[in-house]
């Protein structure tokens, strides 16, 4: 058995394996595949039903189950959802497994997996991945506004 608590190093090795087989494009194709077949059915359905508030519903569960150290906000008026990840246990685990070489763009999967889905519903994302070496990141999702005339 690979425990769900051992998933992160498995994921990292999976990305490394795929890149060795078919380059970085093969990794991105995998992320797109998971986005289309798995994330769409979960996050996508919530956002389809609730609008951008579906992001709040989705991450309320997963960030708690992943025991993240975070601050999450949802601003209904401005249709804006943010996650300030003060410590991501996934990235943190990889950083602590110093005997393993983490996949060089491990955190890249987040933007592809989720935002490929969110874009279909008019939600655009911006990210700050500059502190992933400290297992920290910031993401902001907001409904696209029509251009002002």
């Amino acid at each position, binding site marked *: 058995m690979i425990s769900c608590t051992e998933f992160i190093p498995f994921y990292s*090795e999976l990305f490394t*394996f795929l890149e060795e087989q078919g380059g970085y494009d093969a990794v991105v194709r995998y992320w797109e595949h998971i986005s289309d077949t798995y994330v769409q059915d979960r996050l996508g359905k919530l956002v389809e039903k609730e609008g951008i508030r579906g992001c709040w519903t989705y991450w309320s569960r997963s960030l708690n189950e992943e025991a993240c150290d*975070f601050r999450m906000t949802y601003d209904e008026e401005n249709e804006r959802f943010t996650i300030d990840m003060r410590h991501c246990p996934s990235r943190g685990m990889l950083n602590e497994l110093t005997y393993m070489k983490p996949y060089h763009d491990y955190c890249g999967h987040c933007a592809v997996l989720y935002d490929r889905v969110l874009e279909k519903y008019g939600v655009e994302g911006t990210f700050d991945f500059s502190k992933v070496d400290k297992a920290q990141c910031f993401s902001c999702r907001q409904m696209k506004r029509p251009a002002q005339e």
Partner: protein
Amino acid sequence: MALLVMDRKASDNKYLHLDFHSSVDNGLRYVGEHYGEKGVRELLRRYTLAYHKPRLEDIRRRGLTAIAEYLKDIYEKEDASDALRYTLTDACLTVETAYHPGVRYMRSVGETPSEWGPLTMQVVYGIFAEAAGCAFSLRSYEEQTGAAKFSFAKKEAAV
């Protein structure tokens, strides 16, 4: 208009995200579809040698006891201690699991696990067994629940 804020520390929650079982399975399924059984074996081998490196060193030092302790620990973390029973002697570790926590979870949310559950055990535990100077034997695996019977036996005792 609502302004919602959620602020959590890591210590507020237990680290147990069962969806990651689905994510492991999705990864194995994808590799199986694109690179065949050979690819799945290779991925599992690399993962085991990389992630379990300190554990394999421990198993080389302490043998079957280290494997038994690992299994106990991992089933506790999964809140699935009730699924695990084992018997440990100097020559053999015999294990019986009433269910696989990942298979149970996936079925509970309407997902069908891939075909790679038994191979995962054979590769990962096969490497554990090798480190202990043992042979791994998967005696049974029940697809619906992931219930399994398996053993790690000293090679001289397995003859």
